[in-house]
Structures are given as structure tokens and as C-alpha cells.
């Protein structure tokens, strides 16, 4: 009984503490810092989504920045129309457009904008995933194809000045109003912060139950030995497509939450480098540990904002070293290392480990890092 309680606490206490800290953040952070934390929490949401597909599914998507930006652009289109009132958005006017393009028109409805912002990235991921996984492309091929897509779409968005705002992106969203309140007002900013915390919690729980369910075990099995699972009769294409689409939708949700808090979205959030940086957040925190994705995203981004303002060159070197060090020296990441350490301690003290399937699954997640597993190429 006490063992059960212990393992329950071990599983949920870190998450509850983290959520508690985040909910209480307005008490100890200034408005500026709170807004910054809110932005970083949207990054944490993308990281959880990437951890789902990479940490548990072994598919290293280098396109999460693209899905994030597609979501962000979708919601930014609504906000821009809202901010512009009766006129067409300013960048269209500057590019010589007289009328609103037809595909912009439906985005004046917030419901449509949010639905499209989530569904379009999920659909893109689903269709791309279907064709990639159907031809059994895996491993690094999947990574470089998603990266190529990200690069091309970001170049394309820059080229379509009249429809996407080009290099500047969609700017000046601060004038928009939500339910009669200005986006810049403290109330709206605080509510978006809390909204982000709640959605981060929900996304975490969703992914947690997904990976601890039977579905999650099939996913991890596919990561570790794809052929064996195929011989056992599982349809891996649909499983992988589903997970890829879900992770894209999660990134898109993060984008929707990002835009109103930052007030701008541009192709600089979309390209190759932003997409691969998401990977490093997860790697630093510990892949295959959803909590690690959150912690990694927060740590790396706080590190960036601390260093890059004063020493941008050093930050670039540090970032490079982080990529190398996190895979070479600490493949388990922060949370993974702590879990390994805790496991070793509990074994040493002779407290018998609980033999529930969940505990076994957690051990599996900690013990076997995805990329060390065989069956990948």
C-alpha cells in the first residue's frame, strides 16, 4: 500500500509542483516576466508534442517549427483582421492589394480561425506522414524530408509578401481586441498566461495517458523494433500518421497561444533553425520524459534570454556545444538522469519496485533511450 502511494507520488508530485509554481507565478513575477514566461510555456507545449513523437515514437520531426507557425499564422490572420477593422490589413495595402484575398475572408470568424489553425497543420502532417510512412521511410530520411518541407514553406511565406506579410510577417496585433478588451491590457495578458498554463497541463495529461495506454506501448515498440511489430500484424502507418498529426496539432495550439502574447508572427519563427532548436529543448530536458520537455524548454529559453542579449556570439557557440554535449555526454537529459539516479537509489535501499505495468513502462522510457534501440536506421 505504501509502495503504491510512493510510486503514485513519485509519478505525479513533480508535475503537481510544477503546475503549482506556474499558477502562483503572478504572485512573484512582474508583468513583463510573466508575459515572457507565458511565451516560454507555449514553447514548452511544442516540446511536449515533439517528445511524444520523438521520445516515444522515435520519429525525429524537424518540422515542428513549421506546424507551430502555421497555427500562429492562422490565429494571427484573425487578430490582424480584427485590428484592421473595416480596412484591409496594412501590409496588403502596401503590396498593392485592393481587396481581401478570398482565403483570408473566413478568418474573420474566431471559431473558424482557431479550427483552421489547428486542423491545417494536422492535415499537412497527416498527408505528408501518410506518404512518408507508407513507403516505410524512417530514421534520418524522415528528419531530412520534414526539414526540407520546413525550409521550403518558410521561403515560400517570405515570397508571398501580399498574402503573408513577407519577411516582416503579420505585425501590430496589439491593436486587436478580444471580447471587448485590448490585447495589450493587463487582464487579457494575465488570462492568456493562465490559459497557457491550463492548456500546457491538459496537453501534458493527454500525452501522458496516450503514452501509458496500450497505444503508447505499441508506439514505443514500433520505435524499438519496427519490423517485429509489423510481423505481429500491427498497421504502423496509421499509428505513426496519427501521432505525427497529433504532435503537429499540439505545436499549432502552442502557436495560437503564442501570437496574442507576443503580438507578432514572422517566418523567423518558422525556418530550419527554430525547428531544430525545439529538438534541443527536449534533448536537454530528457527525451521520453514528458516533464523533461517542459523543463528543457524553459531552461534553454531562459538561458537564451539571459545570454543572447549581452553575448550573442557566445550564445551561438554555447548552443552548438549544447547540441553536441546533450547527445554525447547526457543522452538521458536532466529529468532522465534524475530518474536513473532515483531508480538506482531505490534499488540500493532494497525497496522492492512496484511491478505495475505503468512502472514497467516508466522504466522502459528511462532505461532505453530511443536512439540506442536497435531497429532504427
Amino acid at each position, binding site marked *: 500500500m505504501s509502495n503504491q502511494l510512493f510510486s503514485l507520488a513519485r509519478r505525479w508530485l513533480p508535475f503537481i509542483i510544477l503546475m503549482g509554481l506556474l499558477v502562483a507565478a503572478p504572485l512573484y513575477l512582474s508583468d513583463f516576466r510573466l508575459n515572457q514566461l507565458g511565451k516560454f510555456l507555449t514553447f514548452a507545449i511544442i516540446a511536449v508534442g515533439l517528445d511524444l513523437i*520523438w521520445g516515444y515514437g*522515435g520519429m*525525429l520531426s524537424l518540422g515542428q517549427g513549421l506546424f507551430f507557425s502555421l497555427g500562429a499564422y492562422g490565429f494571427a490572420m484573425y487578430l490582424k483582421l480584427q485590428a484592421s477593422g473595416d480596412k484591409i490589413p496594412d501590409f496588403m495595402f502596401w503590396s498593392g492589394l485592393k481587396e481581401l484575398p478570398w482565403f483570408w475572408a473566413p478568418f474573420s470568424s474566431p471559431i473558424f480561425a482557431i479550427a483552421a489553425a489547428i486542423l491545417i497543420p494536422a492535415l499537412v502532417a497527416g498527408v*505528408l506522414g501518410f*506518404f*512518408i510512412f*507508407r*513507403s*516505410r*521511410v524512417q*530514421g*534520418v*530520411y524522415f*528528419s*531530412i*524530408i520534414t*526539414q*526540407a*518541407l520546413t*525550409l*521550403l*514553406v518558410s*521561403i*515560400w511565406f517570405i*515570397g508571398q509578401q501580399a498574402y503573408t506579410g513577407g519577411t516582416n510577417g503579420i505585425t501590430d496585433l496589439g491593436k486587436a481586441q478580444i471580447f471587448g478588451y485590448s490585447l495589450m491590457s493587463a487582464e487579457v495578458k494575465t488570462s492568456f498566461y493562465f490559459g497557457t498554463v491550463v492548456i500546457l497541463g491538459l496537453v501534458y495529461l493527454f500525452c501522458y495517458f496516450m503514452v501509458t495506454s496500450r497505444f503508447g506501448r505499441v508506439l514505443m515498440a514500433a520505435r524499438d523494433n519496427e519490423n517485429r511489430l509489423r510481423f505481429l500484424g500491427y498497421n504502423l502507418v496509421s499509428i505513426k500518421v496519427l501521432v505525427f498529426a497529433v504532435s503537429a496539432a499540439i505545436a499549432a495550439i502552442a502557436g495560437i497561444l503564442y501570437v496574442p502574447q507576443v503580438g507578432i508572427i514572422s517566418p523567423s519563427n518558422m525556418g*530550419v533553425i527554430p525547428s*531544430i532548436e525545439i*529538438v*534541443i529543448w527536449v*534533448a536537454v530536458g530528457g527525451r521520453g520524459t514528458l516533464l523533461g520537455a517542459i523543463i528543457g524548454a524553459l531552461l534553454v529559453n531562459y538561458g537564451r534570454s539571459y545570454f543572447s542579449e549581452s553575448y550573442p*556570439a557566445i550564445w*551561438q*557557440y554555447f*548552443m*552548438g*556545444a*549544447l*547540441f*553536441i*554535449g*546533450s*547527445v*554525447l555526454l547526457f*543522452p538521458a537529459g536532466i529529468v532522465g538522469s534524475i530518474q536513473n539516479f532515483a531508480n538506482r537509489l531505490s534499488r540500493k535501499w532494497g525497496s522492492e519496485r512496484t511491478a505495475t505495468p505503468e512502472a514497467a513502462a516508466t522504466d522502459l522510457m528511462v532505461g532505453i533511450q*530511443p*536512439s*540506442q534501440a*536497435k531497429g*532504427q*536506421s
Partner: protein
Amino acid sequence: MDAMILQLFNGISLGSILLLVSLGLALAFGLMGVINMAHGEFIMVGAYMAYVFQTIVAPYVGGVELGIWFLLAIPAAFLFAGLLGSLMEVTLIRHLYGRPLDTLLATFGVALILQQAARSIFGAPNVNVSSPAWLTGGFDIGTGVLLPYKRIFIIALVVVVVIALYFYLYRSANGRRLRAVMQNREMASALGVRSRTVDAVTFGIGTGLAGVAGVALALVGPIGPSLGTFYIVDAFMVVVLGGVGSLMGTVMAALLVGVSTTFLELSTTATVGKVLVLLLIIAFLQWKPAGLTALQSRS
């Protein structure tokens, strides 16, 4: 008709540069199953090598116009980029053996560091390399269409490199060892091939070729710290399309990507053309998932 010939020429020119870049990627991928994200930065290293030779070496060997410095820069870039690549294999990639996705991330870290190093040494703005006098102008094919000598030189350079690589791979003892390790690493090791040495040497040859590509690119455009990133994604596509079976697969894939990119860009816009090429490659993988040529192996 003239426009078509010019486009075909441009396509072959682009394809030959892509080929030079992708050969190293394909060799490393076939041998070790890793994709080197820093491969583009070795192009950049080679290009800056040309710049350094132009500013430092040229005055001693007859000046910029004569172009001896340029001919010297090609082997120098090959050696320097090759040594740097071998160093990277020995210190980093070797330790990530069997973890291809981790290798991808670690090499991306190397790419960031190399880019920043170039920025620290040469500054962030682009620099220009002026080509030797005998490479200015072009070859008139009779109807007023001018094929620039620079691009003809690049194509000729690539032809020489590919022939040399063919003899290395298929006619030398080292090449035989390389192919043996590529087909079955354990068996080759058991028979006495030092597979680790083969890895380091092959990786170095690959990055060295990227360095040569960099010198060639210095002829046709400005050089900046992020030069490599413009070509690397196309080079990845060449590897995906060509498969890792043979030299021929990479050659065909590079020319195919080069020519179809230029033609599709002509009929649409530059980015739409590239998107179409990517979609065509994904469609092609439905038919032949292993690429144009697949390695026959029982391992």
C-alpha cells in the same frame, strides 16, 4: 531552343555542384548510416579557403588575375576540409555509432559552431572572390547564347572528381575495403579490414569534396557564413533520391534534381519549383523507397 539549351546547361551546372556536395553525404550515409548536418559548413570552409588564398597567397604566385592561387586553393580546400571532417569523425561521430538521429543533432551543433567561427574570423557580411582572368567571359554556342567559362570549368572539375572517385572506389584497395565495410561491417572487420580507419578516411574524403565544392561556388557568388545552408537541403534530397547503392545513383540523382529544379523554377517561381521537386521526390519514394539504386546486402 536557345533558352532550352541555356536552361539545360544551368541545370547541369547546378546538378554538378549538388553532386560534389552530395557525394560525401551519400558515402557517409551508406557507410555509417549517418547524415552530417555540418556538411554544408564544409562547403563554407572551402569557399573561405578560396578567399584566403586570394588575399594571402595570390600576391606570391603571380597575382589574382593569373589564377594560380585558385588552382592551388582547390587541393588546399580538399585537404583542409578533409582533415577537419576526419577530425570530426574521430572525436564525435564515432562515439555515436548506431545512433543516427543523435549524430544528426550533434553534427548540427558542429554546424552552428563552424558558422559562428566563420562569423568571428571573417565577419558577418559576405565577401567576394574575383575569378581568374581566364575564367571571365563565356563560350558562344553560335547564336548569341553565352555559356560562362566559370560554369564550364565547374562542370569539368566535377567530371574529373567523379572519375577520380570512381577509380578510388572501384579500382583501388582502399575503395574495395570501403565497399566491403559498406556491405557488411562485421564481416569485413572479421576479415581484417580496419573499419574505423575506413570510416575516418571516407568521411574526410566526403567533407573534402564539399570543400572543393566551396571553392567552385566562390567563383559564382558571394561567400558568407551561411553559404552551406543554401545547398545542403538540396543535397539531402539528392541522397534520398539517389539511394546509397552506388556512385551512379548519386550522379543520376544530382543531375535529375539540378535539371528539374532549373526547369521547374523557370516555369513557376524559384520556391514553387523547389516545392515541386520535393513533392516529386516524395512521390518517387512511393515507388522505390530505397532510391534510384539500392545496396544489395544481407546484413
